[in-house]
C-alpha cells in the first residue's frame, strides 16, 4: 500500500512531530509513502481571496500525485477539505477543468480526477483497518480518557469530504479506542477549534478554543486527541497563553493521534517526536500498561 504524503505548509515548518510520528506509525503498519517535493500549498488560505487561484493550487497537487499514479494521504484537515473541494469542483465542472489544465499543461501536468484524496484517519480506518492496528498494539492504555476532536474540514461539507457521518461520526473514536483508551462523550466534539481566526480575531478565536478545552475538562478527558496541525497548534497556543494558564485550563492537553497510537504500539518517544521535557505529551506514558 503506497500513498503520496501531503504535508502542507504548517507541518514541515512548525509541527515536524506530526510528520515524524505519522511516518513511524504508518511504516510499522505496512504503508509506504512517497514524498513529492513539488507539492505546493493546498490553496486553503487563498480561497478567501481568489477562487481560481485556490483551484489551481489544489489541482496542481492532485495532478502531481496522479503523475505518480498514487492516491494522496493528507495529514492536515484544512488541506484535506480544500483538496476534496477542488477535486469535486474539477470532476464536475468541465470548463473550469479545461481552464486549469491549460495552466497545468505548461508543466506537463493534468488534472484527470484519478487520484483519491484521503486523510490519515481514513487510511487508518478503511485501508489499514482496526483489526490490523489492534494486532500491532503492544502496550495498550488503561484508564485513559480521550476527547476526540474531529475537525471541521474533515467532517463537513459531508457530500464533498465523505469522511464520516457528519452528525454522529465514529471513525476517530474507534481508532482511539483500539489503543485501549476510552473515547469519552463531550458536547463540543464536532465544534471548531478556533484556529481559522487566529491572527484575525484573536479574542473570538480564543473563546472558541477555551469553550472546547473547558468542555473537555468538564467531561473528564485526560487528553484531547487531534489529527490536524491547525487544531493541534491552536490548542497548544491557547493553552500556553498566560491568561489561560491563570484561569487554570491546563488539561486536557492536546495530543496528536499518531503519537497516541505510536506509544501504544511500542514505538519509542524519539521516533514519535515526543520530547521528554515537553509538558503534557510525555505524561501520557503513565497510562500505558
Amino acid at each position, binding site marked *: 500500500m503506497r500513498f503520496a504524503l501531503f504535508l502542507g505548509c504548517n507541518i514541515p515548518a512548525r509541527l515536524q512531530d506530526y510528520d515524524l510520528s505519522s511516518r513511524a506509525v504508518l511504516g510499522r503498519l505496512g504503508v509506504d509513502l512517497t514524498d513529492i517535493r513539488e507539492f505546493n500549498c493546498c490553496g486553503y488560505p487563498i480561497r478567501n481571496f481568489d477562487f481560481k487561484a485556490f483551484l489551481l493550487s489544489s489541482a496542481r497537487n492532485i495532478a502531481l500525485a496522479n503523475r505518480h499514479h498514487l492516491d494522496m494521504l493528507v495529514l492536515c484537515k484544512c488541506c484535506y477539505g480544500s483538496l476534496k473541494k477542488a477535486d469535486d469542483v474539477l470532476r464536475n465542472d468541465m470548463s473550469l477543468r479545461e481552464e486549469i489544465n491549460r495552466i497545468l499543461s505548461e508543466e506537463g501536468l493534468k488534472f484527470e480526477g484519478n487520484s483519491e484524496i484521503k486523510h490519515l484517519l481514513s487510511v487508518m480506518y478503511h485501508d489499514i483497518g482496526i483489526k490490523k492496528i489492534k494486532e500491532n498494539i503492544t502496550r495498550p492504555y488503561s484508564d485513559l480518557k480521550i476527547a476526540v476532536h474531529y475537525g471541521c474540514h474533515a467532517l463537513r461539507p459531508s457530500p464533498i469530504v465523505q469522511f464520516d457521518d457528519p452528525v454522529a461520526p465514529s471513525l476517530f473514536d474507534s481508532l482511539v479506542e483500539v489503543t485501549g483508551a476510552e473515547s469519552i462523550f463531550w458536547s463540543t466534539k464536532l465544534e471548531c477549534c478556533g484556529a481559522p481566526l487566529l491572527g*484575525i480575531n484573536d479574542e473570538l478565536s480564543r473563546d472558541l478554543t477555551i469553550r472546547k478545552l473547558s468542555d473537555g475538562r468538564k467531561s473528564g478527558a485526560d487528553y484531547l486527541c487531534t489529527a490536524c496541525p491547525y487544531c493541534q497548534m491552536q490548542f497548544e497556543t491557547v493553552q500556553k497563553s498566560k491568561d489561560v494558564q491563570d484561569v487554570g485550563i491546563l488539561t486536557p492537553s492536546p495530543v496528536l493521534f499518531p503519537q497516541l497510537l505510536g506509544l501504544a504500539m511500542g514505538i519509542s518517544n524519539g521516533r514519535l517526536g515526543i520530547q521528554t521535557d515537553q509538558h503534557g505529551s510525555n505524561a501520557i506514558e503513565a497510562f500505558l500498561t
Partner: protein
Amino acid sequence: MFFEISLYLSLVIFASGVVYKASGWFRHDFVDGAHHASPGFRFNKALRGIVGSVCSLKLFILLKVLLLEVLFQTRTMKEDRFRWVMHLLISGGFTVLLLMHALGNIVTIHLFSEYYSSINPFLCIRDLMGILVLLGLIMAAYRRIILKKRYVKTRAVDYYALGILGLILISGFFLEGTKITSRTAYVQMIEDYASTDDEQELTALESFWVEDYGLVSPEVSPPFQKEILTLGKEVHEDNCAGCHSSPQWAFAGYTVAKLTGPFAISLDRFKVTTALWYIHILASFFALAYLPFSKMFHIIASPLSLLTNAVMVPERSHPASILTRQILEMDACTHCGTCSFHCSTAIASKTLGNVNILPSERMIAIKGLAAGNQLTEIDVRAIQEGIYLCTNCDRCTVVCPVGINLRELWFNVREFFIQKGYPEPLALSPYSFYRGLNRNKISSEDYSKPLESARAAISGKYEIRKDKVFDLTDGNAEYREALSRSSTEKSFSYCFACENCTTVCPVVGNYENPQEILGLLPHQIMRSVGLGIKDLTLGSRMLWDCVTCYQCQEHCPQGVHVTDILYELKNQAVKNTPVPTTSSIPATRVAGSTKGAS
C-alpha cells in the same frame, strides 16, 4: 600608461563602491522611524558581534562554514547538482585565472620563481581554467535561456553577469589566438629578446615559428627546407625556448589561431590583436569597477551572509544587528530562483499575475525599498499582496544557497508593509495565522492596527445603516446575476430564512448580542444576496469572523451552500477594496535617513 591609469581608476571605483555598498548595510532599513538605530550604533554592534564571534569557539563554526558552504558551496550541491557544477566551474576557474593570470606578476611570481605566463604549466593551466569558466557560463546560459526552470526569471542583472564574464573569456581566447598568428607581435618579440641580427638566422627562426608555433607570415611560407628548420630550431632554443612553451599547450587559443589562420594577415594588418587587448582589458576593468553595483557583489556579500547566519542567534541579537544582517542578505541574493522554484505559493502567480508572489522577485523589489527608492502605488500594492500571500512554509529559508534567513525577513517586511502600506484585506484570512502565532513579537497596538484598518477599508465602502433605504432595482439584478454564475453558489435562491444556519453558527453563539457585533447574521446574508443588496452582503463583519466550519451549510434544510457563498462574497469584497490614496503609501520611508538614536 593606459593600462595603469585604467587599472587604478577601476580599482578606486571598485573600492569606493564596496565601501559605499557596505555602508548601506548600516544605513538602509525598512523599519519605522521610532525604532530606528543610527548607522554608527549599528556599525558598532556589528563590529562587536564580529569580534565576539571570531574570538570565541564560534571561530570553528566560521571556519567550517567557510570551507564547506563558501568554498565548496554545499548548500547549492544539496539542492541542485547542475547549478553546483556550473557555479564551481565559474567561481573556481575564475579565481585561479584572477590569481594566476590577472595578478600573475603580483601573486604567482612570489609562489613560483620560474613563473612566466607563456611557459608551461602556467600556459596550459590558463587555457584550461578559461575553458572551465566558459563551460560554466554555457551551463548558466542554458539554465536561464533554454532550461527555464519553473518560476526562475531572468532579468537584466542576470544577463549582465553572463555577458560581461563571457566577453572577458571570449576576448581573452581570441586575443591569445590572434597573438599566436600575429607577425607584428612576433617582430616585437624579436626586437625585444633576440640576441642575433643575422638575416639568415632570423629567416630560419621565422620559418620555424611558422612551421611549429602557429605564426602566419607574409614573408616566409611553407614548405620549408629541412636545413632551414634545423637552423631555425637552434636559434629558437637559444633565444626563445627559455620562456616560450609550444603554443599547442594553449589549446583554446591555438584552436582560435588555427580557425583564424586564413585571415591572419588581414587581422594583423588591422591590428585586431591590439583591439582585442583593449576589449579584454577594458571588459575586465569595467567588471571590476562595476562589481559592487552588479549582482556580482554577491562574491562579497554571500559569504558574509552564510557566516553571520551560522553564528548569529536571532533571539539573543539586538534588533539593530538583525536589521543590519537583513540588509546585507539582500546584497547576498544572487537571484538564482531556488526559493521561487520551491515556493508553496508560487503557483498563485499564474492566475493572479503578480510577480511579487515569487520570493526571488519580491527580493529585488524589497532591495529597492530598503535603498530608499520611491515606489509607485501599484508597486506597493503588488509587493504587499505578494508578501501577504506567503504561507510561511519556510521552504525558501531551507533551500537558499546563500543561507538568507528569509523566514525572518518576510515576517519583518510584511509587518512594515501592513503598518505603513495600504489596508490589507488579506490580513483577514488564514494567512494571518502565522502572525497570530507570533503575536508576542509585535506590540499590542501594532498588532491590531492592520486588522482594524482592513475591516474599516472594506466596510467603509459598503454601508450598513439601519436607516438606509436600499434600492432593489436593476443594479441589484446585475449583481445577483454575477453571483449566480458560480454553479454551487447560486443555491442562495433556495433560502427560506429558517435561520438554521444562524442557530448552529458557533460564532453567532459566542455573543449575547451577535447582530450588533457581526452586522448581518448568516441567514440575513443569504436573504440579502437573494435580494441583490451588495452593501449588506459585502459590508457585513460576519464574513471576516466566519470560521468556515461548515455547520451552517451542513444543517441547511434547503441545501444552500452557505459557507461557499460566504467564501464567494469574501472574494468579491477583497477585489473591490477601495483603491488607496497616496497619503498612505510608505513613499517617504526612512529613505537612507539617519535620524533617531538607538
